[in-house]
């Protein structure tokens, strides 16, 4: 267990080091998500009446599309120097590589949300900086990173990687995004915790199922 954690930490620290040098992923994800929010803010006359209705959908659509950009970038760096193969030469289980990459993606998308959520709160005048949103964000980002890491690894060998990833990934992640939108709607409309948690149960089930399945499939995906 201690050795596995050391391996995950070594790969995760490497991703953090590269991100602090390049700042590719966090900037790309935040900028894309903010762009989506701004476009909708100008395109639709946001007021007190419709913000609660359409705001949650716009927020999570922005994060989903921006997150795909981040996933693409995370694996583009590995594809650039064939470095995923270097990790595979090491005497470690492929599952650990998957978990480390998933945690890296989770951290970068979470960091982008830290930038996006307050701006969304101001633009839409909605109280999303609440602890319930922390739980929703956590569960959604875990599932998003779990399945996204697998699909990003799958599309790494495909020529039109940037096109293929959203095409493959977004339909699969739709139930999770529905749970995120519905539970966020309950939060901004002052819903009770049982209402919110009903949708979060779907997110938890999605997270568990896809972490297990993705870790299993990852090995087949990365080997020729």
């Amino acid at each position: 267990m201690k050795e596995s954690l050391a391996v995950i930490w070594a790969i995760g620290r490497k991703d953090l080091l590269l991100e602090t040098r390049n700042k590719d992923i966090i900037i790309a994800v935040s900028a894309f998500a903010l762009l989506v929010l701004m476009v909708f803010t100008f395109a639709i006359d946001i007021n007190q009446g419709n913000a609660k209705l359409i705001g949650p959908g716009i927020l999570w659509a922005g994060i989903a599309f921006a997150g795909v950009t981040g996933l693409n970038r995370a694996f583009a760096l590995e594809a650039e120097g064939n470095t995923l193969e270097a990790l595979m030469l090491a005497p470690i289980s492929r599952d650990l590589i998957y978990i480390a990459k998933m945690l890296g993606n989770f951290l970068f998308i979470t960091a982008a949300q830290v930038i996006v959520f307050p701006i969304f709160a101001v633009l839409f005048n909605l109280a999303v900086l609440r602890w319930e949103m922390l739980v929703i964000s956590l569960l959604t980002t875990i599932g998003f990173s779990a399945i996204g890491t697998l699909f990003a690894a799958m599309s790494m060998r495909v020529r039109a990687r940037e096109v293929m990833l959203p095409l493959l990934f977004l339909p699969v992640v739709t139930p999770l995004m529905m749970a995120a939108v519905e539970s966020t709607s309950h939060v901004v409309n002052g819903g009770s915790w049982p209402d919110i948690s009903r949708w979060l149960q779907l997110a938890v089930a999605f997270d568990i199922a896809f972490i297990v399945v993705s870790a299993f499939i990852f090995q087949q995906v990365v080997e020729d």
Partner: protein
Amino acid sequence: MEDVIKSFAETMVLRSINFSLQPGEVAVLLGANGAGKSTLLRILSMLTQPDSGSIAVYGKNTAKNGPEARALTGSVLHSPMLYADMTIRENLILFAELYRLRNIDDLIEKNAVKVGIESRLDQRVRTLSHGFQKRTALARALMHDPQLLLLDEPESGLDSPSVLQLDNVIEEYRNSGRTILMTTHIIEHALEISDKAIAITDGYAHVESTTTRSDKSNVLSAFSRSFKKTSGDL
């Protein structure tokens, strides 16, 4: 390696590969372009799964004991496979940690001197020439002192002094009872330093000794004939 078969889509690259190497042996893989040399090295490195057949590295079956077999293997493949925005030292530290090595600083210094990159340790890989990147890949492969060293055209991008340095590493490995399997495009030179030649033709492996001068000459002429035939077929 027993009855290893590998195909890509409709093309069968390796039909039935059988050979074994002994500790202290240096073997060179020969074959025309597309014969399957790199595929074979990738299978031995456990980056590519064979369709069937079994491979054992010092008794560890690669399918059943992948991590144990990988711990015994060091690979320098076509691409140096380094993180371009990290320094050589940072790359080596990462892989030393993945191999759970101790005394990492000493190991890095020792292997950097061995391959001649000690003055560049704190330079980012992106700023290095292909030759230095290849040397760094070699240093990484040597860090965990593997029993089996796989080298895919290790001399490509290296200047003459570096090729001599590489020969020294190979000689040192041979003398310490370890095994080396390499591909090369400088066949005459490879035959000089090898004990065995494994020629891949039509997906099959033909193993020949190269210990004596006449062995080397026979292998060279047989390979030339086979290469001309394959080139003619293309």
